[in-house]
């Protein structure tokens, strides 16, 4: 996976994540009846992520960042298809656990790829410019959502995001050398 393609894929992933995030939050809020349930849903997410980080790091070293990112994008694409179907709090808890796991995959792999790719001397500059690009896309996603919601149903936002994740996966998957 070449660096440019990695940035493209990450940009799509970030934008997609930003688009659904507010609605995902809203879903948790609406399904839960109290703040404690909201807290649990969020806590489960963070807790799962914390527990799986060491494991993911090791997997990344052995199978490569590209494969992990592929697994991540496919799983997210699949998960976005599940979210519109959720009706109960316990289902949200399950989704949060999977999200925690996948979030950890994304965060860890993003860093390991950058670490493996960068020259020690120019790493700061390179990662800085990487974050600029990716964050801009994330911002675009967030801002667009505020308006999109007046024009699309919430379920269709999730479906749209699912398609975005699939697109990211194909960007990552295309031939030409592995990481």
């Amino acid at each position, binding site marked *: 996976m070449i660096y440019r393609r990695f940035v493209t894929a990450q940009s799509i992933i970030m934008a997609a994540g930003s688009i659904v995030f507010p609605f995902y939050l*809203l879903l948790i809020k609406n399904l839960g009846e109290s703040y404690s349930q909201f807290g649990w849903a969020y806590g489960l997410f963070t807790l799962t992520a914390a527990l799986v980080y060491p494991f993911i790091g090791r997997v990344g070293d052995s199978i490569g960042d590209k494969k992990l990112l592929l697994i991540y994008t496919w799983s997210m694409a699949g998960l976005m298809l599940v979210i519109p179907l959720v009706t109960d709090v316990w289902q949200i808890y399950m989704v949060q656990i999977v999200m925690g796991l996948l979030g950890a995959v994304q965060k860890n792999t993003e860093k390991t790829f950058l670490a493996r790719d960068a020259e020690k001397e120019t790493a700061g500059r390179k990662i800085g410019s990487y974050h600029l690009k990716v964050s801009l896309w994330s911002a675009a996603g967030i801002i667009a959502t505020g*308006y999109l919601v007046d024009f699309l149903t919430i379920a269709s936002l999730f479906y749209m995001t699912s398609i975005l994740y*699939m697109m990211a996966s194909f960007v990552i998957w295309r031939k030409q050398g592995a990481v």
Partner: protein
Amino acid sequence: MKKRYAFVLLIYCIGFIASLWGYHQKPLIITDKGRLLPTKIKAIHAADDSADLQQWIKKVAVNHEKISIAGMQHSQGGHTLYPGGIMLDMRDYDEIIAYHPKEKMITVQSGATWADIQKEINPDGLAVRVMQSQNIFTVGGSISVNAHGRDIRYGSLMSTVKSFRLLTADGEILNVSRTENNDLFPLVLGGYGLFGIILDVTLELTDDELYQIRFKEMDYEDYPDYFRHKVKQNPKARMHIARISVAPESFLQEMYVKDYVLADNQKLRPEYSDLDREWFVAAPKFFLGLSRYSEWGKDLLWNWQKRYFQYQDDNYITRNNVMRSDSKFLEYHNPNRTETLQEYYVPVDEFVSYIDDLRDLLEEEDLNLLNITVRYVGYDEEEPVLTYTHGEDMFALVLLMNQELGNKATKQTTEVVRKMIDLTLAHGGSYYLPYYSYPSQQQFEKAYPRNDVFFKKKRRYDPHEVFMNLFYKEYGP
């Protein structure tokens, strides 16, 4: 490699379709289009056949279940919902049973929409007499709210209904018309689904006609005279709609009207008789979106709308196409906010002073008002028990409001709405019932003085209260 791409895509597509399918199966907290009343119901039952329905209702009554009846669910006060009840979805009960073009008569199952009817009768040069401005509603739902629209010659929908069959709470099927079981006729018309299931309906049709659009801008003070002399007294003027500005620059001052005047050369009609499709969604949706957020957006929408309609001046349009006005651009899915309607009826003579008072009131209040359309409903001797015309010719003002979801915002809107209704009642007017239960019990009783008769008869025809909804729960005894 290509094979692998294809395989992954295939799996994904299957997942996608499965998800969409599952999403469409997903009940059971149901809310109507107002989204203010999410209601946990027990089940949804889809109606398909009247004999099956008859069996079903007997079973349901034995088990002491409650039924709410739903069509397109555009009512906003839970008229189609009841907690723990079974919602009877009539949308698949939509066949055209009999159609006699020569007699200008059609019999349809109540789940049929106006669009279904238009498709059937348009080729024969026939049209509906009275319906809403949009054609997305079911016939049964429209009867239950006794709808009215842009037509100015026939009165409300009631005047065009010849008869219908009603499945009552004890499983009996009654023919209801002005001569048979006539007690039920003015109860089911505007009866909000509380007397039984309307099975099939026979409607009187009229000729499809070619109209020429007449557009005119005017001050609100000139409107009643204009309407009386240039519209009502002009036998060629058949349909009419007006708008009054909610834009800050011209708030409740500027108006424009659109009259549909019989074209001189009716032979041209076939050229215009293809049923229109709604293709123009993006622009109105965009401007409406802007007007939700800002005052300048409201000015922009008003001016744009005016110019857009001005551009249609002198255009030809058939009656059928007037009666299938755009609605998609109005659909609104913001998870935190909703759009609700109010409709107020004001006697024609009171219009100017009413608007003055309404302006004074609304300038003090914080209400995100997006649109007001004005229609005319003539008084008809034959009225439903829950009538909104009160023996007078009325202008009907439909207000579209945007509010946040949740109790706090609803309470705020309630306060403003109650003030508006007090004002409407003080001018000898009334308000329409299909919307959210902002109005107080007192206001309801004042606007609908025969409500006691209505509810007494409800309990006589349905003593075990099988047909229930949130409207009855709120305002019933």
